């Protein structure tokens, strides 16, 4: 009896390399998108935190009968310190005391302000 010849399909190296390349591409895309989401999340968290810091500062200022620029600066810096911004976030607080008002700002690493508020001082 004559034995039937079995036909075996082999993959060429190019096909395997292409498949591996596609898998790598998928992997890279996935991690790039995760990183972007992570970056966005950090930015949104910082925005919410900055807003809450300013809200807390104003709440504490309302607790006082009258306040000077120095008081505003002290409370704002205290709130900024307690607000829980990550140490490596490079976010800084900025205070400018003028004759009748105080400007408060929370600045991002790129120099742009997340939030800016001008407070009229009462003494």
């Amino acid at each position: 009896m004559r034995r039937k010849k079995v036909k075996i399909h082999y993959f060429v190296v190019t096909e395997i390399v292409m498949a591996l390349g596609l898998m790598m591409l998928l992997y890279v895309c996935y991690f790039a998108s995760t990183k972007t989401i992570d970056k966005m999340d950090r930015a949104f968290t910082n925005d919410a935190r900055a807003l809450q810091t300013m809200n807390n500062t104003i709440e504490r200022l309302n607790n006082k009968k009258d306040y000077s620029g120095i008081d505003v600066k002290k409370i704002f810096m205290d709130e900024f310190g307690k607000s829980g911004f990550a140490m490596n976030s490079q976010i800084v607080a900025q205070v400018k005391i003028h004759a009748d008002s105080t400007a408060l700002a929370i600045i991002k690493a790129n120099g742009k302000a997340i939030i800016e508020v001008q407070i009229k001082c009462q003494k």
Partner: protein
Amino acid sequence: MSKIKRCNNFSLIEVLFAIGLIGILFNMALMFYYDGRKVSMKYMDKASHIRSVSTIAKSWQNFIHANPFPIKVETNKILFRNQAVISVKNNKLIFSTENGQKTYAFSKAFAASFELETNLQEKPVLVLYLKTKGNKNQILKDKFIRIVASSQRSVK
């Protein structure tokens, strides 16, 4: 005698290689699925938390302005002079007065606690901390949102 039809003759190494490759691909697919699901759930939770924080902050401040003078401040309960109470139960913040109670739910990934803070040359303030929980449900003390409410607001 039955005839056994033999088709592709693969060697043992080829079969093992195919099984290994299928295993790797299957694991990668599972990893993509579970990791993607975990990441999206995490961010959905965070987004809902940030949204609920603004609602909670407003209610927390309004409640304390309406019911000043706390007489007993614990990490999970505040009792006010007029018998109003704020308490935390699991992931719920409960504001109770004589007229009834309001409940605000926040994400299960966070834990709430209270603190009475006294700063120099200032009246005491009540602070609500919404702290993030870690993977093993432990409270991460360095990741929190702080909401201040003045307990004895000056009348201007």
